[in-house]
């Protein structure tokens, strides 16, 4: 378990992390989301004791990280896969960590095997590694001590689709065995597929925090029809809000389709459409886009790429 209690980090007059409080529970994958520069990495560095907070504190397994007697065996950390000496071989990086933790040498080979660094790859120097290989090595480094807490900053970075799937299954398996997994990512889809809980941060502040199912409960029905006007009239009459999704006209022919995203559950939307006599082509949970919408909406005030005049 990880608990972050009122952590604030200021650099001069700039507040990178502003009174952040959340808990990552055991047996669950907690997704840490936020736009670039929102304070995700700083918060993670505070958790593992690399960055001293201006105020507040973070605890891992009930202790401050610095008080863990042999942290590698309890907490697996991957903050930046490129942050290793470029002149060391992959195997050497793991050997140093294994030696520090007091693990047998065989564990290094096991981990190299697990992350599929094969052939001469473990004997190559990190300077010659691709981003994906570094990432795999970083994951091996984090898993080396078979820790019950994992803290991973953008672990999917640079992995190929097979690698991303593999890592997702690995994190899921860890959490299912009772581990605490905290991972940050800007790949919303990745987080949405694997996370149980979400912590959304923008401009150093937490803007949403809770179970994924609760956070995505609204605005999560996608409906497609060839009679959008009749449907929107009916939805309006029923007092259900909706937004247009996708292009204004889909397909060709006399009656092109439109896709709407509706703030209601599927049953209600189906009933409204039925009463209005509107044939539907599609009625389903708006996966993926739901988190993206929520993310953009929650962090709108702090996004870099929004319109001018956004209030910080």
């Amino acid at each position, binding site marked *: 378990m990880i608990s972050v209690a009122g952590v604030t980090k200021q650099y001069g007059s700039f507040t990178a992390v502003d009174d952040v409080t959340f808990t990552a529970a055991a047996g669950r994958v907690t997704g840490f989301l936020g736009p670039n520069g929102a304070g995700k990495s700083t918060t993670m*560095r505070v958790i593992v004791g690399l960055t*001293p907070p201006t105020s507040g504190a973070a605890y891992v397994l009930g202790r401050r990280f610095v008080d863990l007697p042999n*942290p*590698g065996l309890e907490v697996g950390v991957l903050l930046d896969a490129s942050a290793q000496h470029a002149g060391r071989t992959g195997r050497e990086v793991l050997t*140093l960590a294994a*030696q520090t933790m007091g693990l047998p040498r065989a564990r290094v080979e096991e981990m190299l095997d697990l992350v599929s660094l094969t052939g001469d790859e473990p004997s190559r120097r990190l300077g010659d590694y691709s981003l994906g290989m570094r990432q795999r090595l970083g994951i091996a480094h984090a898993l080396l001590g078979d820790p019950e807490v994992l803290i991973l900053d953008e672990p999917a970075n640079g992995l190929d689709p097979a690698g991303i799937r593999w890592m997702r299954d690995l994190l899921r398996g860890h959490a*299912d*065995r*009772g581990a605490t997994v905290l991972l940050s990512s800007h790949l919303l889809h990745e987080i949405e597929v694997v996370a149980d809980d979400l912590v959304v941060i923008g401009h150093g502040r937490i803007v949403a925090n809770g179970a994924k199912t609760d956070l995505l409960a609204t605005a999560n029905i996608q409906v497609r029809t060839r009679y959008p006007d009749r449907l929107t009239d009916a939805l309006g009459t029923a007092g259900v809000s909706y937004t247009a999704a996708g292009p204004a006209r889909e397909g060709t022919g006399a009656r092109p389709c439109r896709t709407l995203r509706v703030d209601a559950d599927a049953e209600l939307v189906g009933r409204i459409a039925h009463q209005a006599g509107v044939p539907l082509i599609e009625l389903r949970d708006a996966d993926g886009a739901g988190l993206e919408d929520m993310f953009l909406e929650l962090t709108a005030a702090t996004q870099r790429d929004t319109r001018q005049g956004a209030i910080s």
Partner: protein
Amino acid sequence: MTATATAAQDRKVHTTPHRIPLTRIVGVELRKSFDTRSGSWLLASIGIAAVVTTGAVIAWAPESEFSYGQFTLATGFPMSVILPIIAVLSITGEWSQRSGLATFTLVPRRGRVLLGKAIGAAIVAAAATVVTFAVGAVGNVVGSAMAGTPAVWDLDAADVGCFALGIMLMVFVGFGIGALIRNSPGAIVAYMIYAFVAPGLLAFLSFNQTWFRDARPWVDFKHNQDALLQGGSLTGEQWTQLAVTSVVWVALPLFVAVVRVLRTEVK
């Protein structure tokens, strides 16, 4: 019931591990000094430098000057370059190469990492002293045999101790500069200025300014260090000067550097 049993089995049992012993940290830090290409070259260069300088003394020094002290003094010069650089890089690498992220998350008590590095550097300095005196002894035997003169053994245990102390102090100057600057090229340049540029300037100053001539031993740490490498015939006053300059040039910067390393952010 089976399901709960399986779940209980799968659930990781939390046991608090034992604290990482300091000996293990020292071992890891020593390994880190030599497991890169530049590290292994630095290690090899200790032996190479000892052999090459010894050979150079045999080849070019006047035969009448062959003595054990000549050989060890000659080897002391490259050692005073190589060993502090090893000490500098052991610290700055954690920042310049960013391996500190891993190092300080595996051992979050940074003071223990620094202590491990310091002990490791001291072990390297001690080993280099042994190499210097062993190769010097061989050089002395070979050199005098080639010259047909009896070998001059002009060093005793106290001289060995002084040499080791001198080397050790240089290593800790490097250590302190590394911890203070935490950037490999910057720290190496700073050490070179300290070791090779500043002494020349101070010597120049003392030749031209009489007031500085008397003050120099109380200011110029490198001057006192070099006296150590030349053999253990320091007077009581010289020992005091060495102690004073050591506090100012080694202990104080080291203290400031360590405090900053303990508090600063590792990025």
